[in-house]
């Protein structure tokens, strides 16, 4: 029943069936899930005051279309930088990046971005904020008004369309910024610690909400958006993702790439299961470099 509620929302003008064949044909090879993001030996060295600092080194990974992949790692391991490199917002100093088969050399426009802060424009109403990408991209904002309102309704913000950001709580502001990221229906969502500034309860709540909006309940895998999600929280990464990529401290390298084979749709109860705990522990050990069994002393 929820399937009916949200069907077509993420892909206006088409139902889910049509979309898997017509939506984003470039991202799918018939029968096989194609790779949306391809990173090949990506490195990033920047010039600090005294000497060059190597922030990322030899990052090779790929993300399939419709996959939800989290990047975790210690502070300063360059995971946020990596996200911006994928978006074409920062140039990599080594290696190649391609998204949807195209080399990334400048900012790519087929993405939605959500940052740690909601960065809503204080002087615009929530609806006007959600419509901002249309205006920036030179599209007809008026035509997208209906979609913006639908997105707000989906994020349970329909009563707040005409409110100013300061009238909303932090969690609601972040949901509004997710609506903004989804407005132009990008196939790729890049999220940089989007729940990092929220309290634990709101955070867990929004994680569930995100999966629902992502289409976990109602969309075929190929019809879902590809999500690259940076977080500090291991449980959050495990709860949300199909894969968790663990990065090592500076220079950031890929320390492990773990498949999360937990059943979808993910539920609150999942957090209490043994499998969930074991995955968390495994990632924790990879991160801290402790071998299995070494933690109990």
């Amino acid at each position, binding site marked *: 029943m929820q399937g009916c509620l949200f069907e077509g929302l993420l892909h206006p003008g088409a139902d889910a069936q049509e979309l898997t064949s017509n939506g984003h044909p470039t991202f799918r090879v018939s029968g096989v899930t194609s790779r949306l993001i391809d990173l090949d030996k990506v490195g990033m060295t920047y010039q600090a005051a005294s000497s060059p600092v190597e922030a990322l080194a030899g990052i090779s990974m790929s993300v399939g279309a419709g996959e939800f992949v989290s990047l975790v790692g210690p502070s300063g391991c360059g995971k946020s930088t990596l996200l911006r490199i994928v*978006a074409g917002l920062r140039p990599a100093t080594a290696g190649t990046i391609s998204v949807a088969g195209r080399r990334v050399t400048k*900012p790519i426009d087929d993405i939605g971005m959500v940052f740690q802060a909601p960065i809503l424009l204080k*002087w615009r109403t929530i609806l006007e904020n959600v419509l*901002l*990408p249309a*205006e*920036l991209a030179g599209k007809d904002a008026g035509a997208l008004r209906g979609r913006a309102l639908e997105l707000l309704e989906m994020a349970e913000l329909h009563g707040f369309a005409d409110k100013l950001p300061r009238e909303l709580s932090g969690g609601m502001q972040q949901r509004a910024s997710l609506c903004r990221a989804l407005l132009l229906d990008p196939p790729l969502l890049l999220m940089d610690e989007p729940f990092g500034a929220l309290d634990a309860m709101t955070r867990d709540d929004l994680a569930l909400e995100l999966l629902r909006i992502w289409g976990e309940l109602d969309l075929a895998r190929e019809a879902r958006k590809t999500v690259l999600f940076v977080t500090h929280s291991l449980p959050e990464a495990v709860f949300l993702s199909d894969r968790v990529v663990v990065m090592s401290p500076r220079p950031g390298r890929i320390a492990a790439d773990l498949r999360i084979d937990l059943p979808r749709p993910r539920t609150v109860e999942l957090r209490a299961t043994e499998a969930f705990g074991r995955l968390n522990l495994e990632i924790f050990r990879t991160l801290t470099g402790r071998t299995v069994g070494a933690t109990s002393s």
Partner: protein
Amino acid sequence: MTKFAGLSRQYWPTLVLFAFLLASWQAAVSFGGIREYLLPAPLSVWNALWHGDTSWGQHIWATTFEIIGAFVLAAGVGVALGVAIAWSPLLANALVPFLVFVNTLPKVAIAPLFLIWMGYGIFPNMLMGALIGFFPVVINTAVGLSQVEADMLDLGRVFSAPKWKIFVKIRIPNALPYILSALKITATAAVVGAIVGEFVASQRGLGYVIVTTQSSMNTSVAFASLIWISAVGLALYGAVVLAAHLWAPWAEGVD
């Protein structure tokens, strides 16, 4: 009604203090033997304010005109320079040192030059007010235009928004509270500038009135002129505060 009650609750101490000071002043002059040319009694100032042989209308008009002109000029030029500085690093490098130099000049010292260049009149006094008041507008405009979150600018880059669009949709509204905040300073500076200009060279205006009372020892008229000046200044300041309230309500409580 309740708003009025709230205001009176907030301001009654001010009013009581003001009434007390006025009464003491009047008493000191009436009973303390202070001579009228040194310190006129409040009542004679009150009389000079409305009657007497000063034709206040033309002086108030002249000064008000100068102040508003100075304010508009300072605001316009200040915002334009601020935008130029924020728009292009080249312009910023060219302009900023020059502007800092102009700002460090004591403007009062330039006033006699204005007299030589432009003679008597309203315009030089306007220019003096603008010269004193424009600098904070330049700085606040430039700062407000650049104080935009890096992530917001990234968002603009993702959608390959042209530079002018980022300015119109993000940077300028973002700068508005900063600009309005600077304009409060400019409102006061414009009054100073206009009066300084009138002190040096003028045939009309409230500053001119004060200068003439020096020779006639008509101190109550000088006091009355001061009251008119502060009334004009307060009105302009109030207008800016009101504009800030109307145009940038989201920035309430910023300063």
